[in-house]
């Protein structure tokens, strides 16, 4: 979809800065605003990263704090909390990918098989709902529904005799992990279908007609036409998701926090917040944040290379 190849030679060949500014000063003026904003709010924060080589004390500031070299990183990698947070982050991100990635694909295939346009439209609209809700609302609703003794899910299951005592969905770490992951699936499943459904519309209808004539069953059509037709979309999205393996969503973790599930819920975003803002170990928190950013960046670059090597568009 690139339009880059179409050039307007009369306007772009070898302009000097003087000419360019005279002709396009309006555009440079417009750019002042966003550039000023990123400098003020993003770039201005980068020098603060030097505190990873310091023993930063809020009272002393950048100038008064001692330089300690790589000591902070050594401390971080010896920190049991960090190791636990790192392990949890990677484990949960992988599990998340495993359960949250395929769901929209399956759902898109099912929606594509639906033959009632009206019903399909209503279904899609309803399935999009969770995407528009904040994690606070999702978390609050989940707590209401899943409370061991008073939550409606447990109440109904006990009434129907499926279980004899309430399941601690969000207050025991094993159950918490499953609930947390499933809520993630639920939140993203409908929205995720959009891109696949769009890819499916790009598949030629003639292929299906030919397959019908040859007597292909529905499953055969899905397997041999639809899935190969959206393969490149799947690959690109998968790679993009791999690039996010080090990330962690603070809000999603924070709304499901409680003391009983800390073993699993304690992930990098929580580590940074608690070590940093809550207990003022600024240098350590920053070092972990930097580690997370850098690894994330490297993963994105690798993913991009990978996608391009496979002949896809790439991400950058």
């Amino acid at each position, binding site marked *: 979809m690139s339009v880059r190849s179409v050039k307007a030679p009369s306007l772009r060949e070898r302009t000097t800065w003087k000419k360019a500014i005279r002709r396009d000063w309006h555009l440079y003026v417009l750019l002042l605003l966003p550039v000023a904003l990123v400098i003020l709010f993003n770039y201005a924060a980068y020098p603060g990263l030097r505190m990873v080589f310091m023993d930063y004390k809020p009272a002393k500031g950048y100038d008064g704090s001692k330089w300690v070299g790589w000591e902070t990183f050594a401390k971080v990698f010896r920190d049991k909390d960090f190791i636990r947070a790192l392990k949890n982050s990677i484990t949960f991100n992988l599990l998340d990918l495993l359960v949250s990635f395929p769901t929209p694909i399956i759902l898109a295939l099912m929606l594509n098989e639906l033959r009632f346009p009206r019903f399909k439209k209503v279904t899609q609209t309803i399935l999009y709902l969770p995407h528009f809700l904040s994690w606070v609302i999702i978390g609050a609703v989940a707590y209401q529904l899943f409370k061991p003794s008073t939550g409606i899910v447990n109440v109904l299951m006990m009434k129907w005799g499926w279980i004899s005592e309430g399941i601690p969905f969000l207050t025991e770490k094993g159950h918490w992990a499953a609930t947390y992951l499933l809520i993630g699936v639920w939140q993203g499943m409908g929205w995720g279908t959009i891109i696949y459904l769009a890819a499916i*519309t790009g598949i030629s209808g003639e292929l299906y007609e030919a397959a019908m004539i040859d007597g292909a069953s529905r499953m055969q059509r899905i397997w041999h036409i639809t899935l190969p037709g959206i393969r490149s979309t799947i690959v690109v999205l998968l790679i993009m998701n791999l690039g996010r393996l080090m990330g962690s969503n603070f809000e999603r973790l924070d709304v499901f926090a409680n003391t009983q599930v800390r073993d699993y819920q304690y992930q990098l975003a929580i580590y940074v917040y608690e070590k940093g803002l809550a207990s003022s170990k600024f240098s350590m928190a920053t070092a972990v944040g930097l580690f997370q950013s850098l690894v994330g960046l490297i993963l994105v670059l690798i993913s991009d290379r990978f996608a391009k090597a496979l002949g896809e568009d790439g991400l950058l």
Partner: protein
Amino acid sequence: MAKKEREFDTVNDGSHAIRKFTIGDFLIIFILVILCLTCILPFIHLAAKSVSSNTAVMQKSVVLWPKGFNVDAYKSIFQDGTLVHSFLYSVEVVLIFTALGMITCTCAAYPLSRKRLKGRAFLTVILMIPMYFSAGLIPTYLLYKDLNLLNTMWVLILPLIYSSYNMLIMKNYFQSSIPDSLEEAAFLDGANNFQILFRIVLPLSLPIIATLSLFYAVGRWNSYADNKYYITREGLKMIQYKLYQLVASATEAQTATLSEAIEVTSTPEVLQAACIMFATIPIICVYPFLQKYFVKGVMVGAVKG
């Protein structure tokens, strides 16, 4: 692009006429209905709970229909006023944020979409780096502190009004949907860049302006982490964070407390349900109308420039 019209409306296998309703169809419909119910029923249940009597809720007999209908919980919310204030304040923040966000986005996207702009590649990189590399929570926090932004409304607005992601979507739209020839013709007729932007480009971009405004607005409305990081003054907290403090953090103690001054007759259980509904109903009411714009944004975002 020509296919866009039928994107979500029809089955794309040209087989309507010959297919019969099979067990497979039934299974698909069954699964989809179940999934839809998981999206709707929780809210119906909470809505029912929020207008039920305390005893009915305590006996756990409220499922999807209110028992002992009353609106006491909502009355307390309005008498107390903190949630209502927070709601109105959030609306104010979202409106300012969205307006400034769209201005910034246009200021970045339009120049960068002009291929003849000298220094375009460099400026694009400058504006994209923050998306891939952030300084992290602590340096950012200290920066905002130095800028005297902590505990102001502006800390919720200014740092986020420039969004690389939204800028890319807008830039892609300008590049793919507005023909260069149109702009060049105007240029040759003596129009300057501002005139081209305001008279030609923006009027042709209303769909994407609507979409991105909604991205900005819903994003701001829904997030609360920055409230938690940077705001300690009660009056400056947005509704999502208020709700977080009222319910999400009160798992064990279950103390949904509004201010002490007013008399609350509802049990915490009912009050929590009412608070959740108070914050959720606006979104549930508007999202069916917004979602088609969102879908459009996802599609444009998927097309790389």
